[in-house]
């Protein structure tokens, strides 16, 4: 892609390359980007991380396409892409990337009023205000629109009561963007989009222990929480279309996630041995690993193809398809990895299991969520069937 680049883009690439080289702390090379709120303390403990964040904040390159008054650098999409490519090339990451930059920011830019943008975007752009997403409720999982959390107009403020669940990092978040029910007589048409300060009185966030041991998700209880009138985004009862747009941003960001994968073959030879013909010495397991490996290769080619088509204005209907392919392939890979580790893939803690083994086991357990969260396998297939394939309701 570089060779055909316009000369002004080429100039910008060289400039970006030079600035990143000068400013990205070498100690952070190939450190995975920190996405979740739960990583906050770890990040805060790291001086180089703090430095890197401060430099990127000043430069506005965490959200390069946002206007400077919102904390961005006012760059073009092409320039933003160049920054990303150059960052990847040196093993760097964007320290500003968060739910705020990926989901709420783009949503506010489209639906927020100027006061809301000025109030929130700069803090997102500096990674100083962390957001959590208050969408799911105990009775409203895949069927999000059946949510019940009440939001009553009290004249000079909103009064919010109810419960959210699966709220990522709610116990670490500063603010929450939530879907609330402002009209009980309609389903989708009675939902509003509200910004809630997590420090407000009446909010309690309780971490949920997952099967992998992670406590990243929370239940959040709202008990007569007062929210300023100006915190409602868009029109009252028009929150559903804002949420759908935000979920689109979420899906796009999910499909961006590089399924960065170590090949299983070398590990399999280590754990299972090699037969007289040079093959992994476990025919049945080997056959399944080969198929998974091939599916993964074809999947990565599909991610590249979809990205290129999207860049050229092609249809972007494939997100649901991509997500189901991805979750299926990655879940299967997680299963194969612990299976090839045998008894060593079954440990929870202790020195009897290598750290990589314990991590693989937790990652396998965690991967079961991939086909549930962010639109379950079933919901994605419903979307593909109806919207992409045009099958009748």
């Amino acid at each position, binding site marked *: 892609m570089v060779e055909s680049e316009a000369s002004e883009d080429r100039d910008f690439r060289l400039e970006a390359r030079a600035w990143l080289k000068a400013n990205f702390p070498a100690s952070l090379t190939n450190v995975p980007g920190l996405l979740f709120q739960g990583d906050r303390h770890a990040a805060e403990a790291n001086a180089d991380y703090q430095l890197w964040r401060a430099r990127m904040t000043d430069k506005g390159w965490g959200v390069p396409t946002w206007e400077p008054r919102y904390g961005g650098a006012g760059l073009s999409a092409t320039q933003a892409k160049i920054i990303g490519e150059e960052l990847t090339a040196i093993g760097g990451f964007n320290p500003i990337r968060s739910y705020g930059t990926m989901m709420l920011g783009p949503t506010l830019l489209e639906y927020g009023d100027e006061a809301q943008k000025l109030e929130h975007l700069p803090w997102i752009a500096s990674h100083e205000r962390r957001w959590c997403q208050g969408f799911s409720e105990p009775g409203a*999982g895949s*069927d999000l629109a059946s949510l019940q959390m009440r939001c009553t107009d009290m004249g000079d403020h909103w009064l919010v009561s109810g419960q959210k669940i699966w709220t990522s990092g709610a116990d670490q978040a500063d603010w929450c963007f939530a879907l609330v029910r402002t009209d009980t007589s309609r389903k989708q048409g009675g939902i509003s989009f509200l910004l809630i300060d997590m420090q407000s009185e009446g909010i309690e966030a309780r971490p*949920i222990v997952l*099967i992998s041991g992670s406590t990243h998700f929370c239940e959040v209880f709202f008990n007569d929480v007062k929210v300023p009138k100006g915190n409602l985004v868009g029109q009252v009862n028009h929150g559903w279309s804002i949420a759908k747009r935000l979920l689109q941003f979420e899906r796009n960001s999910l499909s961006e996630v590089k399924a960065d994968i170590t090949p299983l073959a070398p590990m399999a030879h280590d*754990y299972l041995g090699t037969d007289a013909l040079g093959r992994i010495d*476990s025919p049945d397991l080997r056959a399944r690993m080969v198929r998974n490996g091939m599916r993964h290769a074809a999947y990565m080619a599909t991610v590249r193809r979809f990205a290129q088509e999207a860049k050229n204005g092609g249809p972007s209907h494939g997100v649901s398809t991509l997500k189901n392919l991805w979750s299926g392939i990655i879940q299967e890979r997680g299963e194969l990895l612990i299976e090839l580790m045998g008894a060593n893939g079954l440990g*929870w803690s202790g020195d*009897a299991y290598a750290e990589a083994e314990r991590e693989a086991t937790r990652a396998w357990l965690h991967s079961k969520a991939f086909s549930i969260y962010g639109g*379950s396998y079933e919901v994605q297939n419903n979307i593909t069937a109806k919207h992409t394939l045009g099958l009748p309701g």
Partner: protein
Amino acid sequence: MAVLNDEQQMLKDMAAEWVRDRMPITALRSLYDHGGGGRSDAIGYDPECWAEMAAMGWTGIIVPEAHGGSDFGYQSLGLILEELGRTLAASPLLSSALGAVTALRLGGDAVQQERWLPGLADGSAIGTIAFEEGAHFAPERIATSATLSGDQWIVNGRKHPVQDGMAANIFIASARTSGQPGDRDGLTLFVIDADAAGLTRDPLDQIDARRPAALTLKDVTIASDRVLGEVGKGADLIDAIVDRAAVGMAAEMLGASAQAFDTTMDYLKTRVQFGAIIGSFQALQHRAADLFGELQLTQSAVEDALIAIDDDAADISALASLAKATAGETLHRISAQMVQLHGGIGMTHEHDAGLYLKRARVAEQCYGSTAWHRDRWARLNGY
């Protein structure tokens, strides 16, 4: 299920009732800490329940009457293991009453049987088999050595994982008296006491909250009357014991599969999404119907293998591999679907789905993995 005789039907009903009362899935939870892993002080089973099982005679079901058992057969023991599997009941029954007893039944002489079977039969002793030495089940690829010194054997090596190894006081362990790792010749079985000098054991903290052990044997001295079977010719005996242990595990897995399926069906019949009970969605109905079919295959394969053992049939190994691999595949799929179909709640440690998922993967690896048994079935059938 297979057509049971009155004795077996009574046993099964009794087991179902006892397990429901005394070892429901909440009993397993007491072995887990609040963070989802095993409690650091847990021993992997409940001694009180073990005593009750023994009092009901379950520990002696395949022990000959002459040695204090009821000699009801593997089918009967399989029925109990299946019921225990339903609630993932953690106990050394499979390791001791099936594994160790089988080793003595098949490999022990009259004196050895009289010496150890009565204790195993009444539950005062807990035995287990210790054949493995690494990540993958491969009873011939062992390095633990036993060398003759005068009238005694000196054993050195490491055995792991040993199922219920922290609970057991008798190990039926394999060691190499000649040959190289990989050789079938040169394998010998020994009965080793847990308190033997030079033997230490460390607990393994496993995802299913059981407590297998890693045994370290350092110059452990063993009297020659503790050799089971012929010196250096233990490979066939090991195969025969493993066949039976694998079928016992398959019976447990059948029970776990059946319960995971039932629990999931109950959820499908009550959970409402998009204004409908989710069990009314055809895509889920067909998935459930397909899984039900897999469950049927598993039940038949497990029962066939148990009957073959009681009949001392010629093709026990092939049927054992069929049972273990079929149960492995079915429990794998059903436990994964149990999480999937429960949605978010299924991902929480608070819900049972994760417990089935974790136990499933451990069971899949025990006494030969699904892949190992498929490969063995293939070999035995000329593929």
